[in-house]
């Protein structure tokens, strides 16, 4: 069974790589399998992780705890969501959609305000002048780094502020912000390239080691 699985995985890997030559039926078959299997995988994963663990176990608890009948309301909204497939009463699906939108807005507003805005501002302003815990002397390397971070964050935010025209001192500050943002994008681009390369190495390693046994 294990050997069969390795052969299936190897042939599918080669099928996807065949796209490097040109778009072809073998690649399209592998692509179609991927779409179908991944849709099925996520449907099952959600069914057991959310519907079973959060709804079924909550409504019919087996550990003696009180059932949470409120969850039926969530299930009802979920069923209403499926009405989207009907052309006549599809508009009712807006109710659960409105619930999702309201819940997302309510949850994420506080979460993002605290974690993204407040915590990041606090981390930027904390310990700008870095001193050695033993000698209490200023550590110039770290201090310059911290000051650079403050300059980068402030100028980057100035660049994102579009309510005022980017002219004069404001414009120059925004330009400095762009430089910091370009370094960030460059660093992320470098990391993306590295992660894709490591995935490629992983697939080639699988083909040569596990499938063809050419590597020890």
């Amino acid at each position, binding site marked *: 069974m294990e050997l069969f699985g390795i052969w299936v995985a190897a042939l599918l890997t080669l099928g996807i790589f065949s796209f490097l030559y040109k778009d072809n039926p073998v690649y399209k078959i592998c*692509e179609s399998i991927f779409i*179908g299997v991944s849709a099925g995988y996520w*449907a099952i994963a959600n*069914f057991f992780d959310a519907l079973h663990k959060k709804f079924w176990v909550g409504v019919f608890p087996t550990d003696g705890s009180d059932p949470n009948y409120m*969850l039926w309301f969530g299930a009802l909204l979920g069923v209403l969501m499926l009405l989207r497939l009907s052309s006549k009463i599809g508009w009712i699906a807006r109710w659960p959609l409105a619930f999702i939108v309201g819940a997302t807005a309510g949850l994420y507003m506080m979460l993002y305000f605290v974690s993204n805005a407040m915590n990041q501002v606090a981390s930027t302003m904390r310990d700008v002048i870095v001193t050695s815990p033993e000698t209490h002397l200023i550590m110039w390397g770290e201090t310059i780094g911290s000051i650079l971070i403050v300059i*980068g964050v402030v100028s980057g935010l100035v660049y994102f502020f579009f309510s005022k025209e980017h002219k004069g001192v404001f414009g120059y500050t925004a330009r400095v912000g762009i430089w910091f943002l370009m370094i960030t994008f460059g660093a992320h681009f470098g990391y993306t390239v590295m992660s894709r390369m490591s995935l490629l190495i*992983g697939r080639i390693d*699988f083909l040569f080691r596990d499938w063809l046994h050419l590597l020890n």
Partner: protein
Amino acid sequence: MKRLVPLIITFVVGTVLILSVFIPPMEGLGENFTLFFDIIAVFAFFLGGGNLVRVHFQKMSRKSDDWEFSIVTLVGFFVMLAAGLFKIGNPGDIASSVTADGSLFQAIYRSVFVPLSSTMYALLAFFVASASYRAFRAKNREATLLLVAAFIILLGSTPFGTMLTSWVPESWSIFQIPNLAVWLMSSPNLAGQRAIIIGIGLGVVSISLRLILGLERTYLGDDNA
């Protein structure tokens, strides 16, 4: 009815979840709403699955271009569904985990889903090469900064980068490429990243307020829908 009810639902749910952070007695209601959210999201996935089946059946019945591949997609979808729902080949009883070793679901996940998804992403390595060529042309100061940062990060993660600047004396070790990559990540990159994160945070707050107050209504679509 078609627009007012959804607007009221969005306002009430959003307001309750915000208030539940500040008013302890409302915490329970907030937790229930979060559970509702998860349950509805599952049905949204089912809706997506239903839509996938409908689209591919339509393609097959109309004999559209490449309709043969729709059969492959639907077979893959239904096989995965059946393997998971009926726990085919599960070593334990029906109550055992769907991802238990030896189950058909786990076998398809390991031999089909994982290789296909990782190869799809690995394929991007080749296209990133052509994207790099376009990005790495230093046309102006900003593009040069992007180029230099990307090169330092790329070289810093490889043995070649270490070898390239191994001659730099220890007192100037910051100029060794791996150290330079670490400094780049922890200082200028962190600054730009924080500016983006703070911008996203403030953006989420403003769009959330617009949604809750009913100023943003595009998610409702048009009245004929």
